[in-house]
């Protein structure tokens, strides 16, 4: 559901030449080796600008929803050539209450709805007005 606290850190990336003259890419792999597009469309690799600091690239808020080492591969291509940087982000086990317990608590209203529907189906009939 949610990763450790680093998932909500503000991470920005600024080439020395600024982002105007450079192409930036970001490829993210989960600990299990699947690619995660974060918030971008499936066919986009480009680094997005930070949603609150549009003069630099930056990572948005998203969930790192599996413990383990996530791999962030940043690529640059500009007048000075191409290059990459690889960031390995270790994600710890989920803090807070066990997820199953959280979901159990959260589904109480749903259980109320199902109970209500069950009673209505069992005892339903024409409404007298």
């Amino acid at each position, binding site marked *: *559901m*949610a990763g450790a606290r680093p998932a*909500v*850190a*503000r*991470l920005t*990336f*600024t*080439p*020395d*030449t600024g982002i*105007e003259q450079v*192409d930036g*890419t970001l*490829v993210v792999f*989960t600990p299990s*080796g*699947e*690619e*995660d*597009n974060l*918030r*971008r*469309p*499936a*066919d*986009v*690799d480009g*680094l997005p600008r930070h*949603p*609150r600091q*549009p*003069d630099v690239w930056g990572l*948005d*808020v*998203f*969930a790192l929803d599996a413990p383990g080492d996530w791999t962030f591969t*940043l*690529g*640059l*291509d500009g007048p*000075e*050539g*191409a*290059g*990459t*940087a*690889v960031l*390995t982000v270790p994600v710890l086990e989920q*803090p807070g209450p066990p997820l199953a317990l*959280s979901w159990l*608590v959260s*589904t109480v*209203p*749903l259980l*109320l709805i199902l109970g*209500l*529907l069950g009673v209505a189906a069992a005892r339903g009939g024409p*409404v007298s*007005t």
Partner: protein
Amino acid sequence: MTQAGLLARPWVPAGILLLGSLSTLVGLAWDVQWHSDVGPDTFFTLPHLFIYAGSAVSGLVSLAVVLTATAATRAGHRVDTAVGGRPVAVFGVFQAPLGYLVSGVGAAVFLLYGLWDEWWHGIYGFDAIIASPPHVGLLTSVMLVMIGSVMTCAAAAGQAWARAALVGSVVMLIGFSMVVLVALPPWGAVDGQAATLALISMTALVCVASFTRSLVTTAVTAWVLVATQVAFSFFSPWATRLYAVAEGLPIRDYNDGLPRLPMLMPATLPLGAAAIVLAVLLLRGRTAAAYAVGGALGGAALAATFPWQPLLFGGMPSPAAGAQRSRRSRRGRARCGRRAAGRPAGRGAAPPPPGRGGGGLRCAASSSGWSRPACCSPPRPRPPHRTTRRSRSCTRNASPSGRTR
């Protein structure tokens, strides 16, 4: 004995309850779009105001009706069942008309889950996804409020306003309930979102058909839902951009701008209504069996068409209807051709050490999360920004759902 106030005019509290539901629905469609297009923000946003005001209004009017009904009963008056349905004794003290009891309980539970959501944010920070446990609790609490609203409209059956109000309340219930689809995990071979959408939508539609015994009302309900979907398809992106401009905030890069919540509403619900009509005609009567068969047929039609629904909005269909995470493996990715992140190997360049890009990349991290001062900075013109797209041969599917990550 005569009744006064809320009990004398059932349309007043029922109408207020409907307005509360409408406020919550507007706020939700706006808020989901805001989180998708603009980004996380503080609690104090206009969409949140609509959501919470809607629940507050619903809770307060429910409380008012319950207290009024209790006072009337104690004074020896008989409370008309047109006001929310049959009164139910609560704690041996209160006399609560059933519809208002349900909506009031939903509003009260909503407050409790709001507190839990606050605690949740204290652990995890800003919303990264809609489908957190407290959010699901909040959203299903609102569903309970809206079911209460449906009951209050149904209880007034026979009154001039009740039929239109019933249609409106059911449409809002269906439209709002679709947000829970984003919380559903993949079910393997079965598209869980499509199946759940079909189940919720057809249950509501069959209830309308069996309660009103009117096929016309059933069809009207379906088409009003479609009209609502169209209206919100324009409203939520428009309101989001307008609000972003007013706040001086940019729209996210690589944002497709598709209307998130409307894309989850069942655009083919008229097929469900047609299935009910067909079943009633074939089985020659408005029987329970006819409604069951019609509901099953309609559900199958909705489930079959939902994965293709994004085409209507300019998106791409997806069997998974929403999984944004590509399932490509590292090995599969290596076959996808030229890409900046994979170029060094192809060009024989040695990768730079981690944390330092070959182009002089500076990485700045702040563990303090999002700061409001940055959000409040004056709007800056968006610089021309080159986007980097993969070759089409590498694409797999687009993501049509409202699942935000």
